[in-house]
């Protein structure tokens, strides 16, 4: 399995009047062919900013990037962080494509679907209008849109939400990119449609052997499709590992909190939703110690007051499963097993 994308120690900060917003603070991850890597976290955890960084879609001047994003382009690699605008533009939509959260507003309301799709091809293959339109129809067909020829002449408002997301996926696939970034691809859709879109993405992934970077806050979606998971909190990765590890042996208190807060249909009467208490931290003034400490129920198990004073490193007994926590790994294992029993009852 060839590595398609490697993010190393990525920092993204936005200067504002109130101070520097550290949206992404030292994120590293890698994505291989045919693999789905999920970035999970709540709003403002830096997951979308990470995705946009790979696309080079941050405004020059508005964002300060450091670290590296090595993207495989053909046989060579390009570091998005240091590449020029033009180099990134030529890669966008060709080597790496992105689908967005809200398909209702992500398509241009004034242009026909066929032309919008064709443009994605034409940008990288100038002058081939005929091929572009033909490919647009083929792609619409591939993503399951009936009568693609006829529908390619229609406007976005004539499509339903699920159909528009299919159109967005078709658009992303116009140049058969190796890497697909899917930013909350199912969040704006009905639950029944969500499943269809996920199944579609999985089948397309097989067909194109794509690496998918799935950005989501929906653990249900992650459980269905992800191979590897990175859990983000306050701009940092707090847990990273295989989907099985993260789901069945969570090592970070925040991951545990996320798992516990998934609402489930209870067999015995009504049950209150279990939310993580407190608010996500401000990205301008992150706590000096562990960013999650103010909301964490396990701080008393750590040595002294270390959770409030020291930033935990991303560590683990196995390099395939890392987490940030000051509480001893054995202690966490023991505590979390009990908690999970409660959840999985």
């Amino acid at each position, binding site marked *: 399995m060839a590595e398609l994308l490697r993010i190393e120690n990525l920092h993204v900060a936005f200067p504002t009047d109130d101070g520097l917003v550290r949206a992404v603070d030292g994120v590293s991850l890698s994505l291989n062919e045919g693999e789905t890597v999920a970035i999970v976290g709540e709003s403002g955890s830096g997951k979308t900013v990470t995705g946009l960084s790979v*696309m080079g*879609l941050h405004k020059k001047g508005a964002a300060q990037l450091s670290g590296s994003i090595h993207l495989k382009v053909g046989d060579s690699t390009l570091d998005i962080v240091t590449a020029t*605008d033009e180099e990134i*533009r*030529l*890669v*966008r*939509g*060709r080597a790496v*494509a*992105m689908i*967005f959260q*809200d398909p209702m*507003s*992500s*398509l*241009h*309301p*004034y*242009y026909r679907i066929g032309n919008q799709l064709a*443009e*994605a091809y034409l*940008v*990288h293959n100038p002058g081939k209008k005929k091929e572009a339109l033909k490919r647009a129809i083929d792609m619409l067909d591939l993503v399951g849109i009936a009568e693609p020829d006829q529908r390619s002449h229609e*406007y976005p*408002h004539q499509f339903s939400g699920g159909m528009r997301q299919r159109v*967005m996926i078709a*658009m992303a696939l*116009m140049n058969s990119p190796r890497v697909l970034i899917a930013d909350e691809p199912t969040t704006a859709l009905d639950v029944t449609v969500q499943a269809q879109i996920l199944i579609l993405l999985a089948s397309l992934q097989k067909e194109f052997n794509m690496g998918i970077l799935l950005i989501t806050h929906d653990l249900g979606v992650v459980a269905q499709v992800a191979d590897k998971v990175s859990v983000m909190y306050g701009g940092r990765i707090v847990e990273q590992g295989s989907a099985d590890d993260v789901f069945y042996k969570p090592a970070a208190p925040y991951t545990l909190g996320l798992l516990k807060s998934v609402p489930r249909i209870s067999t015995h009467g009504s049950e209150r939703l279990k939310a993580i208490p407190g608010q996500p931290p401000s990205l301008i003034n992150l706590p000096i110690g562990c960013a999650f400490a103010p909301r964490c129920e396990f701080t008393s198990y750590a040595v002294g007051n270390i959770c409030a004073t020291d930033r935990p490193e991303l560590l683990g007994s196995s390099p395939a499963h890392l987490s940030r926590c000051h509480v001893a790994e054995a202690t966490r294992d023991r505590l979390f097993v009990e908690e999970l029993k409660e959840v999985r009852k």
Partner: protein
Amino acid sequence: MRNFLVRRIFFAIITLLIVSAVVFAIFSLIPFDPAALTCGQRCTDQIIEGNRVKLGFDKPLFMQYFLFLSGIFFGRSYGAGSAAFSCPAPAFGYSFNENACVTDLLREALPVTVSLALGALTLWLIVGVSLGVIAARFKNKWPDRVSSIFVLLGTSLPTFVTGLALLIWVTIKWKLVPLSLVGYTSLLENPFKFFQYFILPWITLAIAFAALYTRFTRAAVLETLGEDYIRTARAKGVKERTVLFKHTMRAVLAPIITLAGLDFAGLIGGAIITETIFNLPGLGRLTLRSVFEFDLPVVLATTILAASVVIVMNLIVDMLYAVLDPRVRI
């Protein structure tokens, strides 16, 4: 589309009937004898009464209104015998001050005002939209700052100041445009003279409107640039230039055209100040003169004309919008 047109035209006619009836009623309430206004200093009761009968002012008000309406469609004749005269359809009455059918007065004034408004519209659209796009593209950089100074000046300087300033400097001091331009020349007759005649009035009107359009375009472009579909275009690898001039401008165009249509309609109603400063024999000056001289038939006609233009332009703008925005179907 056809249903829409039929419905809209029907309502346009109703609106015009109401407007004309209201204006008619207002003039009947003015404490002046319209017949007395028709004759000069050497007036006798006999002449006044004669004119009253001639012009139909002796009839009840609703009858006068009916005669006015029928004149629009069938023309109207006044008096009898050798002193009789008539105005062919569409007749909007007879101006005693000018001794002419009102329609003829309008016919002379309308081309001047339309030329003024069309030229100014073209100028302010070019300047306003370009400046707005540049300001948005270079937001908070020096081009944006310069354009915001222009916006401030354009919106705060009244046309009588910019107009007079242009007249004093360009025409009188620098002599770039000759002052002694007598009468209106049509574009077809002598294009050079036409431009000489209108260039300063165009600039005067355009400065005020261009400032508004700069501000509007800048805001619309900035708002559109923040739309999700613009991010989609960038994600496809579309060049920044194409993002701005194709994807963004396509969305910004529709509201600008709407605005332009309505502003244009307003100007046809009379750019009174500009026409007065530059002595243009247009509708604005005609209205102004008729108001000062209590030339009621002319005031009535210009008011109804202005209302009709606004109504018709509204209809055109709505239809244009449906063409420009595929989401709007009529």
